[in-house]
């Protein structure tokens, strides 16, 4: 099993009365809450944490894209990924990802991802989300009725830009480019960097991932219990389509808090978890469902009750309003796994096998968790948990993992240290 370390980069100093005084953490969150000088420290802490996770031996570090969002300070995850490309050596860089329809032209994504792949020596995982309604339709003003068609067209364009050898003209419904010819080109060119698709629980997305042979990732904040129905639906659909049960076809997000004991874990992680599920998911429901964002097929399936309501990540805000915000319910609901290393090992093995997920994306920093606590959680997980869960799925080949240049061929990145300027 692959263990991947994911950062959302939440603003850690939302006030205690945030939910009372402010309607939403997303889209119209007030600028007065943002202190750039504090954000300087947050960004640097977060990047330290990502680098620390790489040092601790996680298989990948993951970043993602959000806009106008108090729990996601990465409008451009590519900026963080490029820094990580220089400050890590063997860890995969999972950009989860770039919302394709937001880039004009979408070849910008092909270029920037190719840059990251070149700088990192071929360690990129290219995530292509449609993007949440709040990010795409509200913060970025994209038309919800055209978003998916734009997304699919942008995907086709990016993929062709990576794989075609000669300059070509692209005449799409939404994009026209006379000369598509990106420089640089990705190192991973057989045929292109691995493409992973974070999505909700729609059957259309599952089928598309199967058809394209992409990894499907269910990035819910509500943990393995709520995710079970979705992942069961995914595997049932794979079976129907004649695909094998290779667990590396799938990715799943899980919050974890490990400590010496369950009680110590509760002591350490209750505050940051309650901060996240309370303040960070305080999204005004008026931004949840722009018409046309959810396909009619998915609406139909939802209304007919073919799918679990929990499967619909397209509706996180409505869900958040109904979900637990105190630690007992957060833990009982399985949103956050906590315990001693042995207890966490048991739970992680259960998550992996019950969901049949080979790529486990771990949130070991959440809410206002401090750098010290985050490093403690990360180190303990790496030392005490990771060695006892890695063996899962060792019979299967991960065909969707980056294929970097051989170590000996890669550039040596000099150790970083502040320069002292010699006196003239």
């Amino acid at each position: 099993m692959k263990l991947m370390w994911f950062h959302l980069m939440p603003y850690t100093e939302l006030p205690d009365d945030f939910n009372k005084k402010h309607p939403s953490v997303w889209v119209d969150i007030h600028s007065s809450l943002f202190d750039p000088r504090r954000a300087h420290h947050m960004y640097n802490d977060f990047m330290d944490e990502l680098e620390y996770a790489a040092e601790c031996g996680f298989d990948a570090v993951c970043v993602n894209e959000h806009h106008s969002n108090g729990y996601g300070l990465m409008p451009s995850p590519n900026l963080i990924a490029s820094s990580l490309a220089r400050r890590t050596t063997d860890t995969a860089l999972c950009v989860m990802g770039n919302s394709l329809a937001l880039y004009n032209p979408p070849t910008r994504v092909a270029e920037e991802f190719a840059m990251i792949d070149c700088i990192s020596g071929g360690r990129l995982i290219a995530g292509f989300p449609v993007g949440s309604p709040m990010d795409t339709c509200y913060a970025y003003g994209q038309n919800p009725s055209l978003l998916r068609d734009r997304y699919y067209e942008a995907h086709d364009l990016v993929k062709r830009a990576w794989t075609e050898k000669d300059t070509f003209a692209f005449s799409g419904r939404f994009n026209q480019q006379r000369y598509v010819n990106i420089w640089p080109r990705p190192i991973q060119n057989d045929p292109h960097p691995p493409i992973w698709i974070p999505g909700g629980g729609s059957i259309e997305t599952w089928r598309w991932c199967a058809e394209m042979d992409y990894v499907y990732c269910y990035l819910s904040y509500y943990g393995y219990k709520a995710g079970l129905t979705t992942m069961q639906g995914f595997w049932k659909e794979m079976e129907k389509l004649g695909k094998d049960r290779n667990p590396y076809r799938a990715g799943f997000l899980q919050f974890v808090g490990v400590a010496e004991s369950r009680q110590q874990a509760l002591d350490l992680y209750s505050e940051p978890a309650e901060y996240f599920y309370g303040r960070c998911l305080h999204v005004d429901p008026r931004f949840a469902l722009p018409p046309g964002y959810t396909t009619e097929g998915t609406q139909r399936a939802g209304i007919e009750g073919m799918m679990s309501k929990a499967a619909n990540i397209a509706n996180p805000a409505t869900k958040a309003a109904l979900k637990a915000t105190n630690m007992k319910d957060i833990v009982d609901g399985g949103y956050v796994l906590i315990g001693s290393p042995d207890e966490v090992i048991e739970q992680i093995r259960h998550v992996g096998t019950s969901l049949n997920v080979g790529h486990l994306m771990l949130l070991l920093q959440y809410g206002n968790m401090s750098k010290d606590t985050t490093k403690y959680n990360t180190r303990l997980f790496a030392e005490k948990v990771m060695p006892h869960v890695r063996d899962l799925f060792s019979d299967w080949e991960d065909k969707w993992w980056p294929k970097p240049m051989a170590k000996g061929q890669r550039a040596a990145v000099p150790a970083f240290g502040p320069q002292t300027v010699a006196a003239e």
Partner: protein
Amino acid sequence: MSDPATTTVEVNGFSCRVWTKGSGPKLGFLAGFGGLPRWVPFLDELARKRTLIVPSLPGYPGGGLGHTVLDTHIDWVLAVRQIVEKAGLAGADLLGASVGGAFAAEMAAIFPGHVRKLALISPFGLFDEADPAADPWAQRRDAVAGIMCADPARWEALVAPPEGANSVEWPIEMTRASEAAARAFWPLGSTRLEKRLGLIEAPTLILWGDRDAVLPPGYAQKFARGINGTTRVQAIAGAGHLAYLDQPEAVARAVLEHLS
């Protein structure tokens, strides 16, 4: 009262419902936000004096999935033109409300021979940063009725599933109507119509609900100032954005007076 005759016209391979009722000179009506999932009393008021022809626009109830092939504003304008022609409305009087009002104005501006007299009820099409319209697509579920009508029960009655309606398809159709509006007017409700208002030569009546919670009443004056033909602005008391649902008689009376 008798039911309207229902026919269909085809545009881009999708069929759109056309209701016809009454006698006298033809009058076309392009409905507002939400479309017409059912016949409403306002239509009877108009059909007493005129041959009322009510085509559904693509994506609105009765308009199927025709919106899915309309990607740009010119796609929409040409689809509406074909509907107007195929419904036998070329050269007739045209009334449009809300989202339908923006298209009625486009017809009068771009195809002036198609519209004899024009009447608009709180039309979409403009946006003023200094006097912003509300966002009809970012409302809590329980707030929608209150921004569409002065009396929220009027909106609720418009969209409530009729007896025997398919409980799966009905809510999808209601969402589709909102999507069709979004497809043409996202995110601000503007199609930069101000650039074309000067082409409108038809005598134009501009009605505005005095309790319109979507489009500020100041927009009525922007239309009046922009349109080249003679214009008259009239407020409808006790009416919200969809004034024809709140005050069907008063709106019909004003429209029929203007056309006579």
